[in-house]
């Protein structure tokens, strides 16, 4: 029993990272932009999140407050991710370059920047960049009071997570309401499904694509920061972060582009990724667990295309640029 509870808790920790990456990419893809730069964006979010928190603590010294450090880390990651996706949007939306190639270029660029910032800090600070234990605890502490966490079973499963998890859940719900219940959300979906029709209806395609991609990129970047600040223990760890962005892209498919599915989907993917550390199933080598998320995604992809049901498809214009004069 305790083992299952710790497994769930650990799955949520890693799942939170994925949830940000996925929610951001869902928003982006809803506009018809397939941004394959998530890997790079999350690297940048991780590096700049650490950068922001570290230099804040350096400036504030012992007076550094946990909540403020968290806000600074979130904002730095957000800005980094938004800047990166702005480049992507400009090149694909305004200049109409191929989305796949631009996304991959952003992945190369972003992982480079992330690594560079991580290394740069290490060299500048003479070896080791880490937050004080005080702030580290602030990043990994839960927001619920102690007695709630201590409720048997339920406390561990529901109330023991970091603030980032609860924020992500709220974000998923907001995104769901935005996409399903608001006019602008409907417009965004329409842009992703058929830019030509939306354009004829008077929707500003360029604006929607830019906003969705830039905000989406910012959200994805927060995921990178959450990884560095929680799982990696507030030190730059590029090996751990590598592949997380691609997993988030997979998760978008698994969730069939629905934000609410991202909540349980990310925890499930998180569980699959960390299971090898905790559970051993006879005859199945642990390394194989790690490819489960990808296999599951492939199966989802195949089934949705075979059934061809209209509400379970990628946005129809995904990956294609829109050029009005070319209609």
């Amino acid at each position, binding site marked *: 029993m305790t083992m299952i509870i710790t497994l769930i808790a650990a799955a949520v920790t890693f799942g939170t990272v994925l949830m940000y990456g996925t929610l951001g990419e869902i928003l982006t893809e809803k506009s018809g932009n*397939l941004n*394959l730069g998530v890997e*790079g964006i999350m690297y940048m979010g991780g590096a700049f999140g650490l950068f922001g928190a570290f230099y804040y603590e350096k400036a504030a010294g012992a007076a550094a407050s946990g909540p403020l450090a968290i806000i600074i880390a979130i904002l730095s990651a957000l800005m980094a991710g938004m800047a990166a996706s702005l*480049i992507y949007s*400009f*090149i694909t939306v305004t*200049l*109409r*370059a*191929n989305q*796949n*190639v*631009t996304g*991959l*270029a*952003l*992945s*190369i*660029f*972003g*992982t*480079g*920047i992330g*690594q*560079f910032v991580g*290394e*740069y800090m290490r*060299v500048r600070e003479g070896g080791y960049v880490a937050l004080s234990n005080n702030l580290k605890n602030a990043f990994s502490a839960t927001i619920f009071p102690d007695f709630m966490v201590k409720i048997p079973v339920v406390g561990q499963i529901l109330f023991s997570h970091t603030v980032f998890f609860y924020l992500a859940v709220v974000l998923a719900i907001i995104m769901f309401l935005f996409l399903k219940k608001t006019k602008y959300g409907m417009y965004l979906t329409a842009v992703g499904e058929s830019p030509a029709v939306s354009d004829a209806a008077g929707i500003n395609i360029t604006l929607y694509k830019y906003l969705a991609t830039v905000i989406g990129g910012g959200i994805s970047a927060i995921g990178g920061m959450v990884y560095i600040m929680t799982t990696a223990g507030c030190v730059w760890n590029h090996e751990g972060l590598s*592949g997380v962005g*691609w*997993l988030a*892209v*997979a998760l978008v*498919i698994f969730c069939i582009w629905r934000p609410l599915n991202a909540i349980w989907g990310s925890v499930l993917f998180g569980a699959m990724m960390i299971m090898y550390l905790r559970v051993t199933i006879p005859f199945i*080598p642990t*390394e*194989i667990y*790690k*490819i489960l998320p*990808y*296999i599951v*995604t*492939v199966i989802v*992809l*195949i089934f949705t*295309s*075979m059934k*061809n049901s209209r509400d379970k498809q*990628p946005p129809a214009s*995904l*990956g294609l640029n829109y*050029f009005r*004069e*070319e209609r």
Partner: protein
Amino acid sequence: MSEVRTPLFRLAKREAMSREKIWAIRVGSIIIALILGCIPIMLTGNNPISAYAVIVQGSVSRPIYIRQTVKIAIPLLGCALAIAPCFKMRFWNIGAEGQITMGAVAATFFALNFAKTIPSPLLLAIMFITAATAGGLWALIPAFFKAKWNTNETLFTLMMNYIAIGIVAWLQGGPWEGRKGSQLIPMFDDAARLPEVFRVHCGWIIVLLLVVLMYFYMNKTKQGFEIAVIGDSVNTARYAGMNVGWIIMRTMFISGAISGIVGFMIVSGANYTLYKGVANGVGFTSITVAWLSQLNSFAMIAISAMLAILEKGSNTLQTRLQVPASIADIITGILLFSMLASEFFINYKLIFRGRDKKEVNA
């Protein structure tokens, strides 16, 4: 309002541009990228000009450096050639990373088990063929589903990469592990290593042959023509009686096979062993190489050489000036952005309000 306002400027597709002008724009974009690349170099407190000098020196100034640079360029070029026919067909194969890996797995299987029993030339031939087959079959899986149910190939091929890498991770720590607990696959015997020509493994000859073959295939054969037609319009291809599904699968097999061969060259010519990072991002970088070369085989030589120089040179930069080697990725990224953006000015023109009256009215 009776009079409709013309926007300040609008876009139009450009008719053919002169060759010189196109190349001037491309070279200009590279220069702009190199200027932008000065920013991160200056952030490290170094002089950008001397840093670029170190990059060039560190990659081409001595024969040994050139050999290492060529070694980096071989897989990039080979894999870009693999991707070209898919992209021509507008089949977005971003699974080269996995196809390289599976090719490497097949080659490694024979290298580990038959190095003592099969004579070297025959063994290498078997490794070559099985690597090509494995890469091709791996690529065939998403192609089959694309042909049959129109499954999104971008996402499918992407997932296949990580499945392939996961398989190697398992082999590395499991059945093929050398010394217990080392998590490493043993080094290949000499018999399973590619011979060297001019002291670089003979992979460079294979890729250069592939350049010519691919150029010929894409431009002079019926199959190349079919690929081009599908790329322009799937419907046209159908009306013309082409079996689109079959062509997609055939093209993907060829593409995967070439990537598989690249995988064979990496394990047998450069690393002499297999580990999960065997493809090391080549499958992704080579996509940008192929695209920026306009899928032209010969242009790919130049672009892959350029990226290889950057990568090799940046390693020297790190040892000499303590600039993080990740600067190579940053400059590569800027270079790609800049070249992607420059295509816009080749393909489109801006028409400003008031000017070109005749065309506005037309």
